[in-house]
């Protein structure tokens, strides 16, 4: 994992001191709220319904054990004993007091973490594949280029006041787990025929009130030239992105209104200028320096099979279910990727208590080469666990309500904080996720239904990714009452698609029954081996509409 150098330490430490002074001036009255608000947002501090909210960056979703322990400590000391892992692989605290946040940030800096650029119209935390460095068949560990982008984009003076926020995601695998086509820039690390590593670049994806799947701008940008290419995209956006209307200010609108071809032409023109200057070529030695931080851990040489692992599944049916749903093959013989669901039946999606975070930190330290990952689907991952150790890990997880065997199933839902916490929300999301989870709590039924991704947003800003849910649910407000609109057919993977709305919205009382109707329509219509999304793509919207509204 990347470790701060002296410059990183100083940069973050200076920023904490700067923010401490800003908070003091706000409390003393020297700064008005209008003056202070952009400063607090640049440090990840929002004002929500009940309190301030602090969003802490977890670069590309990778944590060391000591960092996870610090997140637990902060939940205990500065918050109410829990944190909320988000769809951008970050963590949010819902109750910090403003005057204590500088101390909190100071403690975070001690483990090389911060809240810089987790808000505001700048380049946000770079996200990536949670299986990076653990899954087979990657072109390269996607965190290498993610870290290069992080360093380039942090405090980049040209991109501090963009027309709107800007999100970049990276994957290096044919199966996209980072939803890269739903980002302002999505990057696929790939190899060309000569075996050289380069980057496929997608631009203009996003959700919110106007969702778009990104367009492929470049098929193969050479390794040393990626920053020059990204800078070209950013420069075109910074020059032409709309600043007169925040609803039309994202790059997706620029790409849509300009047209894919013209956008590509402008980016390439800008790229040629930057490239000619040679100013943004990443030196090979710097790439090598950063790559070294992401070298594979010292794996043992082990047999591909583990008799203990196999026997434990035969002896313990619950463990066998956990393995079936939550354990994924590792690239290294004798190891596994262990997913930790933060979606217990009836729980709050993405929430973890301080005690749970401590347990996960201990497990990572003992059994996963000191690493934890956060997923954009609001779960956690122990990326490098020996097969022989999976049962021990499972037993500990189970003792702390962290062993729900539902990864990718109907109860593994994304839900935004919604009207229970969020100042922008129109409707609650979490209670609906909880009710759906309870309705489909029978794991055997969940396995029978198979992969089904429900994503719930409490408003059109789409933090709950409803546009790309196989079943998406959007909360709307009608004269102070909550209603819920269903969409079907969305996808956030390599076949990214925006879901289509079924029709009129449902009341709070009717929405879970409506979801049940959608699910039974699928199970009635599916052919052998078809997942929900396959059946929907084959039969289309009509059969679902008929059952929902006739």
């Amino acid at each position, binding site marked *: 994992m990347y470790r701060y150098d002296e410059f990183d330490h100083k940069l973050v430490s200076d920023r904490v001191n700067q923010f401490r002074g800003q908070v003091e001036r706000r409390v003393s009255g020297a700064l008005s709220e209008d003056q202070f608000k952009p400063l607090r947002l640049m440090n990840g501090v929002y004002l*929500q319904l009940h309190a*301030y909210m602090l969003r802490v960056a977890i670069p590309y979703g990778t944590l060391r054990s000591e960092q996870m322990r610090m997140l637990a400590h902060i939940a205990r000391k500065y918050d109410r004993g829990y944190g909320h892992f988000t769809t951008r692989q970050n963590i949010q605290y819902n*109750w910090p*007091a*403003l005057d204590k946040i500088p101390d909190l940030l100071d403690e975070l800096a001690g483990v090389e973490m911060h809240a810089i650029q987790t808000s505001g119209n700048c380049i946000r935390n770079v996200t990536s594949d949670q299986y990076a460095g653990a899954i087979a068949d990657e072109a390269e560990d996607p965190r290498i280029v993610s870290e290069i982008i992080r360093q380039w984009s942090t405090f980049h003076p040209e991109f501090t006041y963009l027309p709107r926020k800007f999100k970049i995601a990276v994957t290096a695998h044919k199966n996209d787990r980072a939803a890269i086509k739903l980002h302002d820039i999505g990057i696929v690390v790939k190899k060309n025929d000569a075996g050289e590593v380069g980057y496929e670049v997608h631009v203009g994806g996003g959700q919110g009130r106007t969702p778009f799947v990104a367009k492929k701008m470049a098929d193969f940008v050479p390794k040393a030239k990626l920053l020059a290419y990204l800078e070209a995209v950013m420069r075109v956006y910074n020059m032409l992105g709309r600043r007169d209307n925040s609803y039309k200010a994202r790059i997706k609108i620029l790409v849509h209104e300009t047209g894919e071809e013209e956008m590509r032409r402008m980016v390439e023109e800008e790229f040629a200028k930057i490239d000619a200057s040679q100013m943004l070529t990443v030196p090979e030695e710097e790439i090598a320096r950063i790559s070294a931080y992401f070298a594979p851990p010292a794996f043992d040489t082990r047999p591909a099979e583990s008799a203990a692992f196999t026997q434990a599944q035969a002896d313990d049916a619950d463990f066998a279910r956990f393995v079936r749903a939550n354990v994924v093959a590792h690239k290294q013989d004798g190891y596994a990727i262990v997913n930790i669901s933060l979606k217990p039946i009836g729980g709050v999606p993405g929430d973890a208590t301080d005690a749970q975070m401590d347990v996960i930190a201990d497990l990572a330290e003992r059994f996963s080469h000191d690493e934890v990952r956060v997923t954009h689907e609001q779960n956690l991952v122990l990326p490098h666990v020996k097969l022989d150790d999976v049962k021990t890990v499972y037993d500990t997880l189970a003792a702390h309500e962290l062993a729900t065997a539902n990864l990718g199933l109907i109860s593994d839902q994304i839900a935004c904080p919604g*009207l229970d916490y969020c100042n922008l929300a129109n*409707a*609650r999301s979490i209670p609906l996720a909880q009710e759906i989870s309870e309705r489909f709590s029978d794991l055997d039924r969940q396995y029978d239904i198979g992969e089904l991704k429900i994503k719930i947003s409490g408003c059109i800003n789409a933090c709950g990714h409803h546009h790309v849910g196989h079943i998406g649910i959007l909360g709307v407000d009608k004269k102070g009452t*909550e209603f819920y609109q269903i969409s079907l057919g969305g996808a956030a993977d390599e076949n990214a698609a925006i879901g289509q709305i079924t029709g009129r919205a449902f009341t709070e009382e009717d929405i879970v029954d409506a979801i049940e109707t959608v699910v039974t329509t699928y199970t009635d219509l599916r052919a052998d081996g078809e997942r929900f999304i396959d059946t929907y793509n084959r039969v289309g919207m009509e059969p679902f509409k008929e059952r929902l509204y006739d």
Partner: protein
Amino acid sequence: MAQHAAKGARFQAVTANRLSDGEVVYFSPDNRWVEAFAMAEVADGAEAAETLLGRAMPADFEAHVLEPYLFEVLEDGSAYKPASVRETIRAAGPTVRLDLGKQAEAKAE
């Protein structure tokens, strides 16, 4: 600001978030910011509501609270209750964590 004031609402109160910790507060009849909705002053009619909001926003209000605004309340027997789901949640706490927010503090008292 004031985006939650309902047009045509008869009864309204003023709410904000406290500067130091973001706590939801209400403007009271004795010109203080209080944590309990039950202690909020309720204005009857649009004119009284604007007067109430004006009292809540003297020149130095930003030293104490953020973004005061009017919101609709309804008569509830001899008391009042917030009209919208949003303000009901602000007045109580998250519906998914009854152990947190004002609802928990009320229970503990």
